[in-house]
């Protein structure tokens, strides 16, 4: 008897009498049995026991099952029996691309809106810098544990923990901004400017936190819709440079995030954790630590770059952050495809390493190219040496950012944080105390090499395939 009868001959069996109706409709979803014990288990579970086997001339169900030929009649049949991973995988990959792109556009649109608002509203560049760093850290503080919980399938817990941390982050931002600008007010500046600065920092933190939570908790269509609207608002904002636009964008996003978080938290009933646990705190620490390290890295590199070229490097850093999300999805798709086709461990590992290196090189090339274009557009007469410095800084920022994102997404967030903090310290020390060309070259080389190694080691983890 062919094992195919378990899968494809139910109608015939159903017509052959009550005793033979052992092939339960729907059981074919289980696919081809792997061995004779599997056949016996299926037979018994569908009512074909020892008595039925005796009727069929076998001493028991095990002997009857042993009569099944498990070899496939045709190789095509064997390919049919596993569940169709290819279709699901393609669908999932498309969804991941859309999700990653939406998240990128969300951040990019927000950055454009706030930059425009800053330019139009007379906000000082230092304030914008502080707001950017505070938003970065706050976003990671909330996003990392929320992402971790969502990865564990605890969507309700993710919403609750994310909400707690969001309140904490915004609270800290409010207190920090008030203290910072109160001190600033004593030393210099009119009260109106200080107030506007405070508002900018808090508004940007609110936006960053909301974007991080919505990017993790929101469904794809909602995130994509918000991302498109934010991008449009950002572009319009660039044209009209209106501060109220940024506040409005943050308020709308906050309202949508609160509504989404409330819905996600209540969907899990009362099963989710009300407060963050230790693992959430560790995850938040790693996320925030990584953001602090990366911010230090960027600030240190900006110190090393001549003043007029800082804007292009900042834009390049922003671009690297935006591009790394789709890059991760692309690498994931390549790794997955490779692992499904390859049959040797060594080949997959080395190919994964090479593809990761190639991904980082492409990311670096894209951001360096963008930085150089911006430099050529904004700074018409920069010497070659200065342009090289800007290019090196942009490349280093992109590799550090991309490597960190890859390691974090691979679940190695502690390694990502350690590497980011190490790189940040190296860059800051070099920028302020050892700004010699040789030290800078060595520092950039070591930072790039370290982060590349971290990224490759993270990509080597089989769980990412």
């Amino acid at each position, binding site marked *: 008897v062919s094992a195919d009868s378990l899968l494809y001959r139910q109608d015939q069996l159903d017509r052959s009498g009550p005793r033979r109706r052992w092939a339960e409709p729907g059981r074919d979803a289980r696919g081809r049995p792997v061995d004779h*014990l599997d056949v016996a288990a299926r037979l*018994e579970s569908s009512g074909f*026991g020892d008595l039925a086997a005796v009727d069929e001339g076998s001493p028991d169900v095990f002997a009857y099952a042993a009569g099944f030929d498990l070899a496939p009649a045709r190789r095509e049949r*064997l390919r049919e029996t596993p*569940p169709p*991973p290819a279709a699901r995988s393609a669908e999932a990959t498309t969804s991941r691309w859309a999700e990653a792109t939406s998240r990128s556009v969300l951040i990019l649109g927000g950055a454009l809106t706030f930059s425009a608002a800053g330019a139009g509203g007379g906000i000082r560049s230092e304030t914008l810098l502080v707001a950017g760093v505070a938003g970065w850290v706050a976003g990671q503080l909330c996003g990392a544990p929320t992402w971790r919980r969502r990865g564990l399938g605890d969507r309700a817990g993710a919403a609750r923990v994310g909400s707690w941390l969001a309140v904490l982050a915004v609270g800290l931002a409010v207190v920090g901004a008030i203290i910072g600008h109160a001190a600033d007010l004593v030393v210099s500046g009119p009260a109106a400017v200080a107030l506007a600065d405070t508002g900018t920092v808090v508004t940007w933190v609110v936006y960053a936190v909301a974007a991080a939570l919505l990017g993790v908790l929101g469904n794809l269509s909602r995130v994509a819709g918000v991302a498109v609207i934010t991008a449009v608002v950002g572009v319009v904002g660039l044209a009209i440079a209106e501060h109220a636009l940024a506040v409005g964008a943050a308020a709308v996003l906050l309202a949508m995030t609160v509504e989404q978080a409330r819905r996600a938290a209540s969907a899990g009933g009362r099963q989710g954790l009300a407060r963050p646990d230790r693992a959430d705190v560790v995850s938040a620490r790693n996320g925030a630590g990584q953001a602090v390290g990366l911010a230090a890295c960027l600030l240190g590199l900006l110190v090393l770059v001549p003043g007029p070229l800082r804007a292009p490097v900042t834009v390049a850093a922003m671009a690297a952050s935006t591009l790394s999300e789709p890059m991760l999805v692309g690498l994931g798709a390549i790794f997955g495809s490779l692992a499904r086709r*390859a049959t040797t461990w060594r080949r997959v590992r080395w190919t994964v390493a090479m593809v990761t290196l190639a991904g980082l090189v492409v990311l670096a090339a894209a951001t360096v190219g963008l930085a150089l274009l911006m430099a050529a557009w904004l700074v018409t007469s920069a010497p070659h040496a200065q342009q090289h410095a800007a290019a090196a800084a942009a490349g280093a920022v992109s590799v550090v950012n991309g490597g960190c994102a890859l390691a974090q997404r691979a679940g190695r967030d502690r390694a990502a944080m350690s590497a980011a903090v190490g790189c940040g310290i190296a860059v800051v020390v070099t920028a302020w105390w050892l700004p010699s060309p040789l030290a800078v070259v060595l520092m950039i080389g070591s930072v790039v090499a370290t982060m590349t190694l971290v990224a490759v080691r993270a990509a080597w983890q089989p769980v990412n395939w």
Partner: protein
Amino acid sequence: VRIGLVNEGTYPVVAGGVSTWCHQLVSGMDEHEWHLLAITGGQATSVWPRPAQVASTTYFPMWGAVPAPPVGWRYRSRHRRAVVAEALDDFWRFALPVEPFDVRGGARLEGTVAALWHLAEPHDVPLAALLAIDGSAPAILRAWSGHRHGRPHLPTLSVADATQAAALVDRALALLDLPWPEVDVVHAAANGPAALVAMVRSWRHRIPMVLTEHGVYLRERYLAMGDLPVSWSVRYAVLSALRAICTLAYAHASLVLPVSRFNARWQHQLGADPARIFTIHNGVDGTAFEPIDDEPAVPTISFVGRIDPLKDLETLVEAFALVRPHVPQVRLRIFGPCPAGNEHYRDQVAARASRLGVDDALTWEGPVDGSVPAIRAGHVVALSSISEGLPFTVMEAMFCGRATVSTDVGGVNEVVGRDGTSGLLVPPRDPKAMAGAFHELLVDHARRAAMGRAARRRALDHFELGQCIDQYRLAYDLCTSSSDDLVHDLTDAARQPGVAMAAAGFVPARSPAMEQVS
């Protein structure tokens, strides 16, 4: 005696089923000191009151987060990683052998014992952390390559398949080096991961191991894996590994204590020595099931259980339709919940009843609190399942003195007996036979009453909770009274290939009580 009771996903983190059995066992033996080991999906909270004799409860979150390795682990675990890699190679070569798999293959069993022994060696870098790095995937690929020789029908195994299989199996292997209190006897309440943990403890501390299975672990995994969205090759690899673990546990256990002889068939098939298999049926607290003397006003057949295709309610409805022309007032009352996803099946059965013209006499009663109301509601209690282990509903009906008609599947015949005095057995999926049995009992009050009395007598004689506990008590006594004879020096066995392993020569002395239940 200090007893370590190891279970997976049951006691004390969930209620009902095997957890009830565990609680009865622990509560019923206050002369022993109990150490509970719960392998869980992540839960670490007891839902049962803790009996005073429970000295400790250790939770092993099998599917929890992998512990982060300590600082400097890469340098400190260089040698350990090499040992683990070699042990994984050995383990998978046994699970996926070049030659045909033999459940009683002594040489390969020794190799697996050695592999698991090395994996279980204590080290300051947890095995779970090491397995999370590469895990079994490279070993699976190497073993598969050898296994394919002579099996041309096997497809190739991709790296993604191997990684997926490793992710499923390594979670069980990662339990091997977890610390837990010292005990004198280790009792695994299931095969698979629970038995793996128990086996390693048994080897390391040279203590006897007892294995109880309520369902046959491997049989259930065969069925459950079929529903997972994984490829055939992944299922093949994972089930091969589980088969290797299960056969090893059957070979090693000092006593294998299935809850039904139906399960014992599988255990014997998977290599358990028949001389060490003793069936101990589950017990029911008889005080909760007093005899029910009154009967409903109209002839009624009652069914209690969840609405599920395995209960084959279509056959029950067909049998009901066949008996109705002969007993016109007869009614069929179906008690029990309809689990999510089975609504379509309930509709299908209802449509069948409608087509047969009996829907006016059939009622869906829904969930009930305990089985007594459902048992009380029928002149006859029916069980139409096509697959069963040891059904509690039939036992409880017998305690209540009700006549039963059941399909002869699983361990049902062990509950009601084959002589027809304590209950009638009919073949599965045979409405005519079932209708005949219903008719016989519904029209003959004297026969029904005599069967009810015989059923209660049989239940009290064989399925009283106290008796069940006494048999386990005896099993522990057997193990501990001559423990030096029970367990071989497995340390040496693991290190010297060729040495007989896993108490292979041990045959425990049989007591009359054991003879009676086996």
